[in-house]
């Protein structure tokens, strides 16, 4: 059975989504358990594949038993096995932590929410494992459409935010599709490995150059890099909390992964980094992205919007680190895909819990949060420390590699941007912690602060959050192993 994991990991959530949609009419109570079991199975399969890759190297799966350029092939290697495991874990933990919120937010439609959730996950897993450029587009659309629906069902202005998300997302996906079309035009193939074999013969072909730029622009749009980020803050802040903590860790990170995959495994490495003068502008774009998003985050007055901008800055980390073009920076970028997914999940889960219990997430509502919801705030502190980059949380280690890579590449601007963003993050998070810790002030100096009602979330919500928070530290401590066993093998040897 384990040989079929590459297909099953995508097909099982997909089929489960259909079954959930049917069960919603027949036996509504069975939907949630089915979804949880399916996602747990996916995580198990992903971990199994990661193990297999680490032990015995990459392997392929030929769907319909057609050899690769003729049919569609899935290629499991170190890079996608790692990202897949991370994303599967995120999806599972998020569902476990937020199903209560979902029940409250979606009421009668909660079962369809589970179905869309599963479809979203199926699409994301597929994007990660696929080895076919066009197949990736189809999966991308599954993810996107279910994402649009999930975002659109939020509160207040969610519909408009979601429609803007559709526009930007469709342009992004269309650009990617057009890029693939250009590549198909000059190579005649859609298989990534096959493309990588043919493309080295086509240096200097303007079509390839145009394909690269168009596809990258599309991906930048999808991952919300700075000037193309317009859709993200609204989409994330207007959606309801279970959706936010699903989409925020998965979408942008998956797109960064696709960028890595395309630039390393579809285009030849020396084309992406040598032939085309793309790396340098991309790093500068990332620097702008980090600085601008950090500054914009400072001016937000609600927690989720602030986090949304922090997220845009984090995208800048990954893009910049990747386009540094050296092994250390790339390691940092890939590591940060995993770490940032975990961090974002952790932060948004805490925000979701705060929002559920305090019914508001403006900064004002957070007054006294440390006393009212100590566990949730503890989780938020861990997430915040990780985003600031404090050891031993995982955020420190990816930042370590990113800055190290920037030093090795002599990109001082990127070093500066990373340090700047860390400091801004410290300001951002401690501003929140201060409100939660100090306010409301005691009536007199040195007096006891006023008593507040204890309003902690139920244990079923807290437990997955604590697991995530612990995961941040564990991931940080495992950095060495992840890098030497997995990421080192994921980066082509051509990159020094």
């Amino acid at each position, binding site marked *: 059975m384990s040989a079929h994991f590459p297909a099953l990991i995508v097909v099982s959530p997909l089929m489960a989504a259909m079954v959930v949609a049917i069960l919603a009419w027949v036996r509504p109570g069975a939907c949630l358990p089915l979804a949880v079991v399916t996602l747990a199975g996916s995580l198990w399969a992903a971990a199994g594949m990661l193990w297999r890759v680490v032990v015995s190297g990459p392997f392929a799966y030929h769907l319909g038993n057609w050899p690769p350029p003729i049919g569609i092939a899935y290629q499991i290697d170190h890079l996608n096995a790692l990202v897949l495991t991370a994303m599967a874990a995120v999806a599972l933990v998020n569902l476990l932590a937020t199903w209560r919120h979902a029940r409250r937010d979606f009421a009668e439609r909660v079962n369809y929410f589970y179905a869309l959730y599963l479809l979203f996950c199926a699409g994301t897993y597929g994007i990660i494992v696929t080895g076919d450029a066009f197949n990736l587009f189809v999966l991308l659309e599954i993810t996107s459409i279910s994402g649009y629906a999930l975002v659109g069902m939020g509160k207040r202005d969610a519909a408009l935010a979601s429609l803007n998300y559709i526009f930007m997302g469709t342009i992004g996906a269309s650009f990617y599709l057009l890029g693939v079309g250009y590549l198909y035009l000059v190579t005649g193939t859609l298989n990534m490995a096959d493309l990588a074999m043919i493309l080295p013969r086509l240096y200097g072909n303007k079509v390839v150059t145009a394909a690269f730029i168009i596809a990258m622009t599309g991906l930048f749009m999808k991952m919300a890099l700075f000037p193309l980020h317009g859709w993200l803050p609204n989409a994330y802040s207007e959606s309801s909390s279970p959706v936010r903590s699903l989409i925020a860790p998965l979408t942008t990170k998956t797109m960064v992964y696709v960028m890595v995959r395309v630039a390393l495994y579809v285009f030849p490495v020396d084309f992406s980094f040598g032939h085309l003068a793309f790396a340098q502008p991309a790093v500068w774009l990332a620097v702008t992205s980090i600085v601008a998003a950090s500054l914009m985050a400072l001016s937000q007055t609600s927690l989720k919007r602030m986090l949304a901008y922090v997220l845009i800055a984090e995208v800048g980390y990954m893009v910049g680190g990747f386009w540094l073009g050296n092994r250390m920076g790339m390691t940092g970028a890939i590591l940060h895909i995993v770490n940032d997914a975990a961090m974002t999940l952790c932060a948004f889960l805490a925000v979701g819990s705060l929002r559920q219990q305090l019914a508001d997430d403006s900064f004002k509502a957070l007054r006294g949060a440390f006393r009212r919801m100590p566990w949730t705030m503890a989780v938020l502190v861990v997430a915040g*420390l990780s985003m*600031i*980059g*404090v*050891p*031993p949380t995982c955020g420190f*280690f990816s930042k*370590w590699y990113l*800055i*190290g890579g920037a*030093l*090795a590449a002599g990109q001082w601007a990127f*070093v500066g941007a990373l*340090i700047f963003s*860390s*400091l801004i993050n*410290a300001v951002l998070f*401690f501003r929140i912690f*201060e409100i939660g*810790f*100090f306010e409301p*002030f*005691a009536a007199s*100096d*040195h*007096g*006891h*602060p006023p008593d507040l009602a204890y309003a902690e979330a139920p244990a079923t919500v807290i437990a997955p959050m604590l697991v995530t928070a612990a995961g941040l530290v564990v991931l*940080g*401590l495992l*950095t*060495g*192993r992840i*890098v*030497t066993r997995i990421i*080192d093998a994921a980066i082509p040897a051509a990159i020094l």
Partner: protein
Amino acid sequence: MNTLITVKPLLAILAALCLPPILASSRSPNAREAWTFGAALTMFGVIASMLPAVWGGARLEYTLVQVLPTVSIAFRVDALGLLFALVSSSLWIVTSLYSVGYMRGLKEHAQTRFFSFFAFSLAATVGVAFSANLLTLYLFYEMLSFATYPLVTHHQDREARASGRKYLLYILGGSIGLVLPAMLIVYHLTGTLEFSAGGILAGKAGAAQLTALLVMFVFGFAKAAVMPFHSWLPAAMVAPTPVSALLHAVAVVKVGVFSVVRVVTGIFGTGLLTELNLGTLVATIASVTIVAASLIALSQDGLKRRLAFSTIGQLSYIVLGAALLSPSALTGAMLHIAMHAFGKITLFFCAGAIFVATGKKFISEMKGIGWRMPLTMSAFFIGALSVIGLPPCGGFISKWHLVIGALEADRIVFLWVILVSSILNAAYFLPIVYQAFFCSPEEALFERRVQEAPRWCVVPPLVTAAASVALFFYPQPFLQLARLATRHVLGGF
């Protein structure tokens, strides 16, 4: 020299991390404080048990986890680290006693949080002391920053918030803005972060780059409170006195200077610094801080603020000693970590005791207080003597070594700095004692002849004052360690 692999350093840190039992027993204060004592005693016991091995010239090592391909979170107990750990852990026991008296005496809120984070801070402090490489040191350094934040801002009022902000601004700004990049540059240049006796940077970078790095480290470890990165320390005095006593006279600030000493000796190496004459630069910065801080201390009326500025000056003695790079100066610097700790903690304890007993914070209100609190003020006197550096107190020993060191290094200027500042020390401490005993009390508050603070607040300063005196006559444990460390640093092995 031989290296032993042992889990003891980790045990010492874990001993302090007794948060779950402290939190679990939050409903029963006695049990909670018993756990704290247990942790403090266990930690001291574990650390003391490593003493014979280190005296015998061994190093104890333990690698916890390989976090990066070439860098791990690892512990190494050498003479310098053990000296610092010994000071911190022994004083924690005393401080725990004192905290119980102080916190209960003032009926402070959130005492469970207080004791938990106190233990957490000590774990981080010992972690810094036992770090085998710069990354581990940085890890515990940051852990300490965050663990002390709730302690500094314990009162949760507007003033505490402002102080907390300042505290984090300096500490985090320094560590993230300066130390982190500096550390990465070191890693980039050398590929390692291990502390080693001869330094790791020799021959890896040009003079200008090394100077920049050194400056980044010295200022970046803002806990060392080298001017102009000092102003968090007076601000942090809003904390309850046990916090000020242990953390801002011993743990936090000493972690700062300890880190500077470690970096100077373990990363740069004395040879490299001598060669580039970088020592003078650091020594000059430290001298300016010493003199300026002493002058400012003269003008402070708040007792704790005056002590804070005194601390700033005294810390720079240690930096100065390390920067002079001569054997006696290094020994003196390391010794000063211990000697100053005992002296200064006595002073803080006394300040706290006065506050608990009378509610007074300002020196101008303390005329004649010696007649009301004779024991406390006697301890204060001894502590002051030790910090000034007069016999028969431990402070004399370390200052003596520093003076000799300055002569050895043939830097007469710094000799004068030490002497002038000692006179200034005397000038801001002795009048307090004089006023306390020889001025008549002005207020009706002092009608009753003798009324000391609660027992738990009086005993600890007496103990530490006695220890200060004892260290003059029997400085062996620390002196031996400091000499070992110096020999090791200068490549004696």
